[in-house]
Protein backbone atom coordinates (compact mmCIF):
# COMPACT_ATOMS: atom_id res chain seq x y z
CA UNK A 1 0.00 0.00 0.00
CA UNK A 2 1.14 3.55 -0.60
CA UNK A 3 1.92 6.19 2.00
CA UNK A 4 0.79 9.66 1.04
CA UNK A 5 1.42 13.05 2.60
CA UNK A 6 -0.81 15.72 1.14
CA UNK A 7 0.10 19.29 2.14
CA UNK A 8 0.83 18.06 5.64
CA UNK A 9 1.76 20.56 8.32
CA UNK A 10 2.72 19.92 11.92
CA UNK A 11 4.50 22.64 13.90
CA UNK A 12 5.89 22.28 17.40
CA UNK A 13 5.31 25.39 19.52
CA UNK A 14 8.15 27.69 18.50
CA UNK A 15 10.39 25.86 16.05
CA UNK A 16 10.58 22.56 14.24
CA UNK A 17 8.04 20.32 12.61
CA UNK A 18 7.02 20.07 8.97
CA UNK A 19 5.26 22.52 6.66
CA UNK A 20 3.21 21.76 3.57
CA UNK A 21 4.84 18.45 2.80
CA UNK A 22 3.51 16.55 -0.19
CA UNK A 23 5.11 13.17 -0.83
CA UNK A 24 3.94 9.75 -1.96
CA UNK A 25 5.74 6.49 -1.27
CA UNK A 26 4.49 3.94 -3.80
CA UNK A 27 3.96 0.26 -2.91
CA UNK A 28 7.33 -1.50 -2.94
CA UNK A 29 9.22 1.77 -3.08
CA UNK A 30 11.87 2.84 -0.58
CA UNK A 31 12.01 6.58 -0.04
CA UNK A 32 14.79 7.87 2.20
CA UNK A 33 14.27 11.18 3.96
CA UNK A 34 17.47 13.03 4.80
CA UNK A 35 18.12 16.34 6.47
CA UNK A 36 19.99 17.89 9.35
CA UNK A 37 18.76 17.44 12.94
CA UNK A 38 15.59 19.43 13.41
CA UNK A 39 14.79 19.44 9.68
CA UNK A 40 11.51 17.63 10.35
CA UNK A 41 12.34 14.20 8.96
CA UNK A 42 11.48 12.33 12.16
CA UNK A 43 8.29 14.38 12.51
CA UNK A 44 7.27 13.14 9.08
CA UNK A 45 7.74 9.53 10.18
CA UNK A 46 5.86 10.08 13.42
CA UNK A 47 2.98 11.59 11.46
CA UNK A 48 2.83 8.48 9.29
CA UNK A 49 3.04 6.22 12.34
CA UNK A 50 0.25 8.12 14.06
CA UNK A 51 2.33 9.16 17.06
CA UNK A 52 1.52 12.70 15.91
CA UNK A 53 -1.60 14.02 14.18
CA UNK A 54 -1.18 16.52 11.37
CA UNK A 55 -2.51 20.00 12.06
CA UNK A 56 -3.50 20.46 8.46
CA UNK A 57 -3.29 18.41 5.30
CA UNK A 58 -3.87 14.69 4.96
CA UNK A 59 -1.89 11.55 5.71
CA UNK A 60 -3.20 8.51 3.85
CA UNK A 61 -2.15 4.88 3.80
CA UNK A 62 -3.38 2.80 0.91
CA UNK A 63 -5.56 5.74 -0.03
CA UNK A 64 -7.35 5.72 3.31
CA UNK A 65 -7.28 8.95 5.30
CA UNK A 66 -5.51 8.30 8.60
CA UNK A 67 -7.04 11.25 10.50
CA UNK A 68 -8.15 9.94 13.89
CA UNK A 69 -6.77 6.46 13.28
CA UNK A 70 -4.67 5.33 16.27
CA UNK A 71 -1.16 3.94 15.70
CA UNK A 72 -2.29 0.47 16.73
CA UNK A 73 -4.88 0.42 13.96
CA UNK A 74 -2.57 1.56 11.17
CA UNK A 75 -0.91 -1.82 10.67
CA UNK A 76 2.55 -0.36 10.09
CA UNK A 77 5.92 -1.91 10.78
CA UNK A 78 8.08 0.59 12.66
CA UNK A 79 11.79 0.14 13.36
CA UNK A 80 13.30 2.48 15.94
CA UNK A 81 16.84 3.73 16.37
CA UNK A 82 16.87 2.32 19.90
CA UNK A 83 15.67 -1.13 18.62
CA UNK A 84 12.84 -1.06 21.21
CA UNK A 85 12.85 -4.81 21.70
CA UNK A 86 10.92 -6.08 24.71
CA UNK A 87 13.68 -7.05 27.15
CA UNK A 88 11.82 -9.84 28.91
CA UNK A 89 10.81 -11.65 25.71
CA UNK A 90 13.16 -13.82 23.65
CA UNK A 91 13.98 -12.82 20.09
CA UNK A 92 11.34 -15.24 18.81
CA UNK A 93 8.71 -14.00 21.28
CA UNK A 94 9.45 -10.43 20.23
CA UNK A 95 8.87 -11.29 16.59
CA UNK A 96 5.78 -13.34 17.49
CA UNK A 97 4.26 -10.52 19.58
CA UNK A 98 2.45 -8.71 16.74
CA UNK A 99 1.05 -12.08 15.61
CA UNK A 100 -0.11 -12.77 19.16
CA UNK A 101 -1.95 -9.43 19.12
CA UNK A 102 -3.63 -10.57 15.91
CA UNK A 103 -4.91 -13.69 17.62
CA UNK A 104 -2.70 -16.26 15.89
CA UNK A 105 -2.27 -19.48 17.87
CA UNK A 106 1.00 -19.98 19.70
CA UNK A 107 2.39 -22.85 17.62
CA UNK A 108 1.79 -21.05 14.36
CA UNK A 109 3.04 -17.67 15.47
CA UNK A 110 6.25 -19.10 16.95
CA UNK A 111 6.88 -21.04 13.72
CA UNK A 112 6.38 -17.90 11.65
CA UNK A 113 8.59 -15.89 14.01
CA UNK A 114 11.39 -18.45 13.72
CA UNK A 115 11.07 -18.52 9.96
CA UNK A 116 11.33 -14.73 9.89
CA UNK A 117 14.36 -14.78 12.19
CA UNK A 118 15.96 -17.27 9.80
CA UNK A 119 15.48 -14.82 6.97
CA UNK A 120 17.35 -12.09 8.85
CA UNK A 121 20.12 -14.57 9.69
CA UNK A 122 19.27 -15.17 13.34
CA UNK A 123 17.88 -18.73 13.35
CA UNK A 124 20.45 -19.73 15.97
CA UNK A 125 19.65 -16.84 18.31
CA UNK A 126 15.85 -17.24 18.39
CA UNK A 127 15.67 -18.16 22.09
CA UNK A 128 18.03 -15.43 23.32
CA UNK A 129 16.87 -12.40 25.25
CA UNK A 130 17.61 -9.05 23.56
CA UNK A 131 20.19 -8.24 26.24
CA UNK A 132 22.24 -11.19 25.00
CA UNK A 133 22.32 -9.94 21.39
CA UNK A 134 24.62 -7.39 19.76
CA UNK A 135 23.22 -4.08 18.50
CA UNK A 136 23.20 -5.31 14.91
CA UNK A 137 21.44 -8.53 15.90
CA UNK A 138 18.85 -6.61 17.93
CA UNK A 139 18.06 -4.42 14.94
CA UNK A 140 17.67 -7.56 12.79
CA UNK A 141 15.12 -8.83 15.31
CA UNK A 142 13.36 -5.46 15.22
CA UNK A 143 13.23 -5.62 11.41
CA UNK A 144 11.82 -9.15 11.54
CA UNK A 145 9.23 -8.03 14.10
CA UNK A 146 8.20 -5.09 11.90
CA UNK A 147 7.72 -7.26 8.82
CA UNK A 148 6.33 -10.53 10.21
CA UNK A 149 2.71 -9.37 10.16
CA UNK A 150 2.91 -8.13 6.56
CA UNK A 151 2.40 -4.45 7.41
CA UNK A 152 0.77 -1.97 5.06
CA UNK A 153 4.03 0.00 5.07
CA UNK A 154 7.41 0.02 6.76
CA UNK A 155 8.74 3.02 8.69
CA UNK A 156 12.43 3.08 9.57
CA UNK A 157 13.51 5.74 12.06
CA UNK A 158 17.29 6.08 11.84
CA UNK A 159 17.59 2.31 12.17
CA UNK A 160 21.35 2.14 11.72
CA UNK A 161 22.48 5.25 13.57
CA UNK A 162 23.50 3.45 16.73
CA UNK A 163 25.60 0.83 14.94
CA UNK A 164 29.25 0.50 13.91
CA UNK A 165 30.21 1.32 10.33
CA UNK A 166 30.79 -2.29 9.30
CA UNK A 167 27.52 -3.55 10.78
CA UNK A 168 25.74 -0.58 9.25
CA UNK A 169 26.84 -1.44 5.72
CA UNK A 170 25.78 -5.06 6.20
CA UNK A 171 22.37 -4.16 7.61
CA UNK A 172 21.78 -1.65 4.85
CA UNK A 173 21.83 -4.47 2.32
CA UNK A 174 19.63 -6.64 4.55
CA UNK A 175 17.06 -3.86 4.92
CA UNK A 176 16.99 -3.39 1.14
CA UNK A 177 16.61 -7.12 0.49
CA UNK A 178 13.88 -7.63 3.11
CA UNK A 179 12.05 -4.53 1.94
CA UNK A 180 12.11 -5.72 -1.68
CA UNK A 181 10.84 -9.17 -0.68
CA UNK A 182 8.02 -7.72 1.40
CA UNK A 183 6.99 -5.19 -1.24
CA UNK A 184 6.08 -2.74 1.51
CA UNK A 185 6.13 0.99 0.83
CA UNK A 186 9.01 2.17 3.01
CA UNK A 187 9.83 5.51 4.54
CA UNK A 188 13.42 5.49 5.77
CA UNK A 189 14.52 8.44 7.88
CA UNK A 190 18.26 8.91 8.21
CA UNK A 191 20.90 11.59 8.62
CA UNK A 192 23.41 9.40 6.76
CA UNK A 193 23.31 10.52 3.12
CA UNK A 194 25.50 7.65 1.96
CA UNK A 195 22.96 5.26 3.45
CA UNK A 196 20.16 7.13 1.70
CA UNK A 197 21.89 7.29 -1.68
CA UNK A 198 22.89 3.64 -1.57
CA UNK A 199 19.56 1.96 -0.77
CA UNK A 200 16.75 4.33 -1.68
CA UNK A 201 14.70 4.38 -4.86
CA UNK A 202 14.16 8.05 -4.22
CA UNK A 203 15.64 10.45 -1.70
CA UNK A 204 13.76 13.36 -0.16
CA UNK A 205 15.86 16.22 1.22
CA UNK A 206 14.33 18.20 4.05
CA UNK A 207 15.31 21.54 5.52
CA UNK A 208 13.43 23.59 8.09
CA UNK A 209 10.38 21.39 7.77
CA UNK A 210 10.12 21.67 3.99
CA UNK A 211 10.94 19.27 1.20
CA UNK A 212 13.68 20.78 -0.95
CA UNK A 213 13.84 18.03 -3.56
CA UNK A 214 12.62 14.48 -4.07
CA UNK A 215 14.53 12.56 -6.70
CA UNK A 216 16.35 9.34 -7.44
CA UNK A 217 19.87 9.25 -5.97
CA UNK A 218 21.70 9.98 -9.25
CA UNK A 219 19.59 13.00 -10.11
CA UNK A 220 19.83 14.30 -6.59
CA UNK A 221 23.62 14.16 -6.62
CA UNK A 222 24.28 15.17 -10.21
CA UNK A 223 21.47 17.66 -10.75
CA UNK A 224 20.48 19.11 -7.37
CA UNK A 225 17.56 21.52 -7.60
CA UNK A 226 19.25 24.28 -5.70
CA UNK A 227 22.20 25.39 -3.68
CA UNK A 228 20.91 23.97 -0.38
CA UNK A 229 20.48 20.45 -1.79
CA UNK A 230 23.87 20.63 -3.48
CA UNK A 231 25.49 21.67 -0.23
CA UNK A 232 23.72 19.04 1.85
CA UNK A 233 24.19 16.02 -0.39
CA UNK A 234 27.84 15.16 -0.77
CA UNK A 235 30.66 17.67 -0.82
CA UNK A 236 30.33 20.70 -3.06
CA UNK A 237 32.29 23.69 -4.30
CA UNK A 238 29.74 26.46 -4.74
CA UNK A 239 30.76 29.76 -6.35
CA UNK A 240 28.61 32.76 -7.26
CA UNK A 241 28.84 33.15 -11.02
CA UNK A 242 27.90 35.66 -13.71
CA UNK A 243 27.14 34.52 -17.24
CA UNK A 244 29.73 36.40 -19.30
CA UNK A 245 28.72 35.02 -22.68
CA UNK A 246 27.08 31.83 -23.94
CA UNK A 247 29.35 29.02 -22.72
CA UNK A 248 31.40 31.27 -20.45
CA UNK A 249 30.98 32.19 -16.78
CA UNK A 250 32.87 34.53 -14.51
CA UNK A 251 33.63 33.27 -10.97
CA UNK A 252 36.12 33.73 -8.16
CA UNK A 253 38.16 31.05 -9.93
CA UNK A 254 38.37 33.27 -13.05
CA UNK A 255 36.56 32.82 -16.33
CA UNK A 256 35.44 29.26 -16.91
CA UNK A 257 33.91 27.47 -19.83
CA UNK A 258 30.63 25.86 -18.84
CA UNK A 259 27.26 24.77 -20.18
CA UNK A 260 25.10 27.90 -19.88
CA UNK A 261 21.97 26.96 -21.80
CA UNK A 262 18.92 28.27 -20.00
CA UNK A 263 20.86 31.23 -18.60
CA UNK A 264 20.98 34.66 -20.27
CA UNK A 265 24.30 36.48 -20.53
CA UNK A 266 24.56 39.07 -17.77
CA UNK A 267 22.45 37.09 -15.30
CA UNK A 268 23.71 35.57 -12.11
CA UNK A 269 23.86 31.92 -11.02
CA UNK A 270 25.66 29.57 -8.65
CA UNK A 271 28.30 27.24 -10.06
CA UNK A 272 28.42 23.75 -8.53
CA UNK A 273 31.64 21.81 -8.93
CA UNK A 274 31.87 18.42 -7.17
CA UNK A 275 35.36 17.94 -5.68
CA UNK A 276 35.89 14.57 -7.41
CA UNK A 277 35.17 16.18 -10.81
CA UNK A 278 38.18 18.48 -10.54
CA UNK A 279 41.12 16.87 -12.34
CA UNK A 280 44.67 17.31 -11.00
CA UNK A 281 47.15 18.57 -13.56
CA UNK A 282 47.09 21.33 -16.17
CA UNK A 283 44.94 21.45 -19.33
CA UNK A 284 44.05 23.87 -22.08
CA UNK A 285 40.72 25.03 -20.67
CA UNK A 286 39.47 25.85 -17.17
CA UNK A 287 42.93 25.62 -15.76
CA UNK A 288 43.24 26.49 -12.07
CA UNK A 289 46.52 27.29 -10.38
CA UNK A 290 46.91 27.67 -6.65
CA UNK A 291 48.64 26.72 -3.51
CA UNK A 292 47.78 23.74 -1.36
CA UNK A 293 46.04 24.89 1.85
CA UNK A 294 45.21 21.42 3.17
CA UNK A 295 45.82 17.83 2.11
CA UNK A 296 43.95 15.11 3.96
CA UNK A 297 44.66 11.47 3.31
CA UNK A 298 41.45 9.44 3.73
CA UNK A 299 42.66 6.06 2.52
CA UNK A 300 40.78 5.54 -0.69
CA UNK A 301 41.16 9.21 -1.63
CA UNK A 302 42.80 12.51 -0.76
CA UNK A 303 40.79 15.62 -0.01
CA UNK A 304 42.76 18.73 -0.93
CA UNK A 305 41.95 22.40 -0.51
CA UNK A 306 43.62 24.48 -3.20
CA UNK A 307 43.97 28.18 -2.36
CA UNK A 308 43.10 30.00 -5.57
CA UNK A 309 42.62 33.51 -4.19
CA UNK A 310 42.75 35.24 -0.82
CA UNK A 311 39.21 34.09 0.06
CA UNK A 312 38.80 31.34 -2.47
CA UNK A 313 39.39 27.66 -1.79
CA UNK A 314 38.74 24.90 -4.31
CA UNK A 315 38.16 21.48 -2.81
CA UNK A 316 39.49 18.57 -4.81
CA UNK A 317 39.10 14.84 -4.24
CA UNK A 318 41.46 12.50 -6.02
CA UNK A 319 42.79 8.98 -5.71
CA UNK A 320 46.13 10.13 -7.06
CA UNK A 321 49.04 10.30 -4.62
CA UNK A 322 51.11 12.58 -6.87
CA UNK A 323 51.85 16.18 -5.95
CA UNK A 324 50.33 18.92 -8.09
CA UNK A 325 49.94 22.70 -8.06
CA UNK A 326 47.51 22.97 -10.95
CA UNK A 327 44.19 21.42 -11.78
CA UNK A 328 41.45 21.81 -14.34
CA UNK A 329 37.70 21.53 -14.40
CA UNK A 330 36.11 19.90 -17.45
CA UNK A 331 33.29 22.23 -18.63
CA UNK A 332 30.71 19.44 -18.32
CA UNK A 333 31.61 19.15 -14.62
CA UNK A 334 30.22 22.60 -13.88
CA UNK A 335 26.52 22.78 -13.13
CA UNK A 336 24.78 26.14 -12.90
CA UNK A 337 22.15 26.39 -10.20
CA UNK A 338 19.57 29.16 -9.85
CA UNK A 339 20.81 32.22 -8.01
CA UNK A 340 18.31 32.02 -5.17
CA UNK A 341 19.83 31.72 -1.79
CA UNK A 342 17.56 29.23 -0.10
CA UNK A 343 19.91 28.63 2.79
CA UNK A 344 18.80 30.61 5.85
Amino acid at each position, binding site marked *: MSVTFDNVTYRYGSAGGVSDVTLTVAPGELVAVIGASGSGKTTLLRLAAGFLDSQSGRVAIGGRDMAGVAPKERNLGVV*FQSYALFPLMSAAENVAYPLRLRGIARAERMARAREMLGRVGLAEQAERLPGRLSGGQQQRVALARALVFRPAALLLDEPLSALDAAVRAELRDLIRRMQRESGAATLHVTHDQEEALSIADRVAVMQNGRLLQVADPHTLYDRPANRAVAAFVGHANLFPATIAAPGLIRTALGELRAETSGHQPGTRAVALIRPERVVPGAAEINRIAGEKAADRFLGSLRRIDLRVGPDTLLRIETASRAEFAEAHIPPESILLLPDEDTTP
Partner: protein
Amino acid sequence: MAIALYLTYLLIPIALLLVGSFGARWTNTLLPEGFTTEWYVQVATDPSFRRAFTTSLTVAAGVAVTVLVTATPLAWALATGGGTLSRFALRLVALLPIAVPELVLAFGFVVVFSSDALPFLGSTWLLVMGVSVVTLPYMVQTLVADIRHLGLAALEQAAESLGASSWRRFVDIVLPSLRHSLLAGLMTVTALTIGEFQLANLVSGFLSRPFPVVLLQAFYGAAGFACAATVILLVLAVLASTGAALAARGTSRA
Protein backbone atom coordinates in the same frame (compact mmCIF):
# COMPACT_ATOMS: atom_id res chain seq x y z
CA MET B 1 35.52 3.54 59.27
CA ALA B 2 32.56 5.83 58.82
CA ILE B 3 30.35 2.90 58.01
CA ALA B 4 31.56 1.04 61.09
CA LEU B 5 30.68 4.04 63.23
CA TYR B 6 27.30 4.32 61.52
CA LEU B 7 26.55 0.66 62.09
CA THR B 8 27.64 0.93 65.71
CA TYR B 9 25.16 3.71 66.36
CA LEU B 10 22.50 1.83 64.47
CA LEU B 11 23.15 -1.57 65.98
CA ILE B 12 23.91 -0.81 69.65
CA PRO B 13 20.42 0.51 70.46
CA ILE B 14 18.91 -2.46 68.64
CA ALA B 15 21.15 -4.89 70.52
CA LEU B 16 20.18 -3.26 73.82
CA LEU B 17 16.49 -3.57 72.93
CA LEU B 18 16.96 -7.26 72.18
CA VAL B 19 18.83 -7.86 75.42
CA GLY B 20 16.28 -5.83 77.35
CA SER B 21 13.35 -7.76 75.91
CA PHE B 22 14.70 -11.00 77.36
CA GLY B 23 15.86 -9.50 80.68
CA ALA B 24 13.82 -10.28 83.78
CA ARG B 25 14.70 -7.10 85.70
CA TRP B 26 16.25 -3.86 84.43
CA THR B 27 16.39 -1.00 86.87
CA ASN B 28 19.37 1.26 87.53
CA THR B 29 21.86 -1.19 86.01
CA LEU B 30 23.82 -1.03 82.73
CA LEU B 31 22.41 -4.35 81.55
CA PRO B 32 19.29 -6.25 82.66
CA GLU B 33 19.44 -9.23 85.02
CA GLY B 34 17.89 -12.68 84.59
CA PHE B 35 16.32 -14.26 81.50
CA THR B 36 12.65 -14.48 80.60
CA THR B 37 10.32 -14.72 77.63
CA GLU B 38 7.49 -13.42 79.79
CA TRP B 39 7.51 -9.93 78.16
CA TYR B 40 6.75 -11.39 74.76
CA VAL B 41 3.90 -13.43 76.19
CA GLN B 42 2.54 -10.30 77.85
CA VAL B 43 2.72 -8.27 74.65
CA ALA B 44 1.09 -11.10 72.71
CA THR B 45 -1.80 -11.35 75.14
CA ASP B 46 -2.29 -7.63 75.70
CA PRO B 47 -5.61 -6.70 74.02
CA SER B 48 -4.56 -3.19 73.04
CA PHE B 49 -1.34 -4.47 71.49
CA ARG B 50 -3.19 -7.23 69.65
CA ARG B 51 -5.61 -4.64 68.29
CA ALA B 52 -2.74 -2.30 67.37
CA PHE B 53 -0.95 -5.10 65.56
CA THR B 54 -4.05 -5.83 63.50
CA THR B 55 -4.59 -2.12 62.84
CA SER B 56 -1.00 -1.73 61.66
CA LEU B 57 -1.35 -4.65 59.26
CA THR B 58 -4.69 -3.32 58.01
CA VAL B 59 -3.25 0.15 57.47
CA ALA B 60 -0.16 -1.31 55.76
CA ALA B 61 -2.36 -3.33 53.40
CA GLY B 62 -4.61 -0.35 52.70
CA VAL B 63 -1.65 1.92 52.01
CA ALA B 64 -0.04 -0.71 49.79
CA VAL B 65 -3.16 -0.98 47.63
CA THR B 66 -3.71 2.80 47.47
CA VAL B 67 -0.10 3.53 46.60
CA LEU B 68 0.06 0.72 44.07
CA VAL B 69 -3.02 1.97 42.24
CA THR B 70 -2.08 5.67 42.23
CA ALA B 71 1.70 5.57 41.90
CA THR B 72 1.94 3.72 38.57
CA PRO B 73 -0.13 6.18 36.50
CA LEU B 74 1.44 9.14 38.31
CA ALA B 75 4.95 7.85 37.68
CA TRP B 76 4.09 7.14 34.05
CA ALA B 77 2.82 10.68 33.57
CA LEU B 78 5.91 12.10 35.28
CA ALA B 79 8.36 10.01 33.31
CA THR B 80 6.79 10.39 29.88
CA GLY B 81 4.67 13.56 30.17
CA GLY B 82 5.05 16.26 27.54
CA GLY B 83 4.68 19.84 28.77
CA THR B 84 7.27 21.43 31.04
CA LEU B 85 4.57 23.01 33.17
CA SER B 86 2.57 19.83 33.70
CA ARG B 87 5.75 17.95 34.51
CA PHE B 88 6.70 20.58 37.06
CA ALA B 89 3.25 20.42 38.62
CA LEU B 90 3.37 16.65 38.84
CA ARG B 91 6.88 16.73 40.27
CA LEU B 92 5.72 19.19 42.91
CA VAL B 93 2.77 17.00 43.82
CA ALA B 94 5.06 14.03 44.12
CA LEU B 95 7.70 15.76 46.22
CA LEU B 96 5.63 18.00 48.49
CA PRO B 97 4.72 15.25 50.95
CA ILE B 98 8.44 14.72 51.55
CA ALA B 99 9.20 18.42 51.88
CA VAL B 100 6.25 19.28 54.11
CA PRO B 101 6.67 17.94 57.66
CA GLU B 102 4.21 15.16 58.44
CA LEU B 103 3.17 17.11 61.49
CA VAL B 104 1.83 19.90 59.26
CA LEU B 105 -0.22 17.41 57.29
CA ALA B 106 -1.46 15.85 60.53
CA PHE B 107 -2.57 19.19 61.99
CA GLY B 108 -4.29 19.92 58.70
CA PHE B 109 -6.17 16.65 58.98
CA VAL B 110 -7.11 17.42 62.59
CA VAL B 111 -8.53 20.80 61.59
CA VAL B 112 -10.41 19.60 58.52
CA PHE B 113 -11.72 16.24 59.69
CA SER B 114 -12.78 17.13 63.23
CA SER B 115 -15.41 19.50 61.90
CA ASP B 116 -19.09 18.57 61.97
CA ALA B 117 -19.17 18.56 58.18
CA LEU B 118 -16.39 15.99 57.93
CA PRO B 119 -16.29 14.06 61.20
CA PHE B 120 -13.83 11.41 60.05
CA LEU B 121 -10.95 11.97 62.45
CA GLY B 122 -10.00 8.69 64.09
CA SER B 123 -11.18 6.41 61.30
CA THR B 124 -8.75 3.87 59.94
CA TRP B 125 -9.34 4.83 56.32
CA LEU B 126 -8.37 8.43 57.05
CA LEU B 127 -5.10 7.14 58.47
CA VAL B 128 -4.65 5.01 55.34
CA MET B 129 -5.16 8.07 53.13
CA GLY B 130 -2.75 10.18 55.18
CA VAL B 131 0.02 7.60 55.22
CA SER B 132 -0.53 6.93 51.50
CA VAL B 133 0.04 10.61 50.74
CA VAL B 134 3.20 10.60 52.82
CA THR B 135 4.66 7.40 51.34
CA LEU B 136 3.53 7.82 47.72
CA PRO B 137 6.59 9.87 46.65
CA TYR B 138 8.97 7.04 47.57
CA MET B 139 7.11 4.66 45.27
CA VAL B 140 6.78 7.27 42.51
CA GLN B 141 10.50 8.08 42.58
CA THR B 142 11.42 4.42 42.33
CA LEU B 143 9.07 3.88 39.40
CA VAL B 144 10.06 7.05 37.53
CA ALA B 145 13.73 6.09 37.75
CA ASP B 146 12.96 2.64 36.38
CA ILE B 147 10.65 3.85 33.59
CA ARG B 148 13.38 6.21 32.40
CA HIS B 149 16.20 3.74 32.88
CA LEU B 150 14.42 0.98 30.95
CA GLY B 151 13.28 3.31 28.16
CA LEU B 152 9.73 2.11 28.72
CA ALA B 153 8.15 4.94 26.73
CA ALA B 154 9.89 3.76 23.58
CA LEU B 155 8.92 0.13 24.27
CA GLU B 156 5.33 1.13 24.80
CA GLN B 157 5.33 3.05 21.55
CA ALA B 158 6.80 0.08 19.74
CA ALA B 159 4.06 -2.15 21.16
CA GLU B 160 1.47 0.38 20.08
CA SER B 161 2.80 0.38 16.53
CA LEU B 162 2.58 -3.42 16.51
CA GLY B 163 -1.12 -3.19 17.33
CA ALA B 164 -1.31 -3.44 21.13
CA SER B 165 -4.16 -1.67 22.93
CA SER B 166 -3.27 0.43 25.96
CA TRP B 167 -4.41 -2.35 28.31
CA ARG B 168 -2.32 -4.95 26.49
CA ARG B 169 0.68 -2.63 26.54
CA PHE B 170 0.26 -2.17 30.27
CA VAL B 171 -0.10 -5.88 30.97
CA ASP B 172 2.43 -7.21 28.45
CA ILE B 173 5.14 -4.58 28.57
CA VAL B 174 4.86 -2.04 31.39
CA LEU B 175 3.90 -4.25 34.31
CA PRO B 176 6.45 -7.04 33.69
CA SER B 177 9.22 -4.48 33.22
CA LEU B 178 8.35 -2.69 36.44
CA ARG B 179 7.75 -5.75 38.59
CA HIS B 180 11.01 -5.42 40.53
CA SER B 181 10.67 -1.71 41.21
CA LEU B 182 6.99 -2.10 42.11
CA LEU B 183 7.94 -4.75 44.65
CA ALA B 184 10.87 -2.73 45.98
CA GLY B 185 8.73 0.39 46.26
CA LEU B 186 5.97 -1.55 47.94
CA MET B 187 8.34 -2.96 50.56
CA THR B 188 9.75 0.51 51.27
CA VAL B 189 6.24 1.90 51.61
CA THR B 190 5.27 -0.95 53.94
CA ALA B 191 8.33 -0.46 56.12
CA LEU B 192 7.61 3.27 56.35
CA THR B 193 3.94 2.62 57.11
CA ILE B 194 4.69 0.17 59.89
CA GLY B 195 7.04 2.64 61.59
CA GLU B 196 4.89 5.73 60.95
CA PHE B 197 4.23 7.62 64.19
CA GLN B 198 3.81 11.38 63.72
CA LEU B 199 0.69 11.27 61.61
CA ALA B 200 -0.85 8.26 63.32
CA ASN B 201 -0.37 9.77 66.78
CA LEU B 202 -2.54 12.76 65.87
CA VAL B 203 -4.98 11.27 63.41
CA SER B 204 -5.83 7.78 64.69
CA GLY B 205 -8.75 7.15 67.04
CA PHE B 206 -8.37 5.46 70.40
CA LEU B 207 -9.51 2.07 69.09
CA SER B 208 -7.64 2.34 65.79
CA ARG B 209 -4.19 3.21 67.08
CA PRO B 210 -1.43 1.47 65.12
CA PHE B 211 1.45 -0.29 66.79
CA PRO B 212 3.95 2.61 67.20
CA VAL B 213 1.36 4.82 68.90
CA VAL B 214 0.43 2.11 71.42
CA LEU B 215 4.13 1.40 71.85
CA LEU B 216 4.72 4.86 73.25
CA GLN B 217 2.38 4.02 76.14
CA ALA B 218 4.45 0.92 76.89
CA PHE B 219 7.45 3.02 77.82
CA TYR B 220 5.58 4.35 80.82
CA GLY B 221 5.51 0.77 82.14
CA ALA B 222 8.10 -2.02 82.54
CA ALA B 223 11.28 -1.67 80.46
CA GLY B 224 11.26 -5.32 79.37
CA PHE B 225 7.69 -5.07 78.10
CA ALA B 226 8.53 -1.93 76.09
CA CYS B 227 11.64 -3.60 74.67
CA ALA B 228 9.74 -6.71 73.61
CA ALA B 229 7.03 -4.63 71.92
CA THR B 230 9.66 -2.56 70.09
CA VAL B 231 11.47 -5.69 68.93
CA ILE B 232 8.24 -6.94 67.37
CA LEU B 233 7.86 -3.66 65.49
CA LEU B 234 11.49 -3.88 64.46
CA VAL B 235 11.12 -7.42 63.11
CA LEU B 236 8.16 -6.31 60.99
CA ALA B 237 10.02 -3.29 59.61
CA VAL B 238 13.20 -5.29 58.97
CA LEU B 239 11.20 -7.95 57.11
CA ALA B 240 9.76 -5.26 54.85
CA SER B 241 13.15 -3.57 54.34
CA THR B 242 14.88 -6.85 53.54
CA GLY B 243 12.18 -7.55 51.00
CA ALA B 244 12.79 -4.10 49.52
CA ALA B 245 16.53 -4.68 49.34
CA LEU B 246 16.05 -8.06 47.66
CA ALA B 247 13.56 -6.64 45.18
CA ALA B 248 15.87 -3.70 44.46
CA ARG B 249 18.69 -6.12 43.74
CA GLY B 250 16.40 -7.78 41.25
CA THR B 251 15.81 -4.41 39.60
CA SER B 252 19.47 -3.64 39.13
CA ARG B 253 20.05 -7.08 37.68
CA ALA B 254 17.15 -6.98 35.25
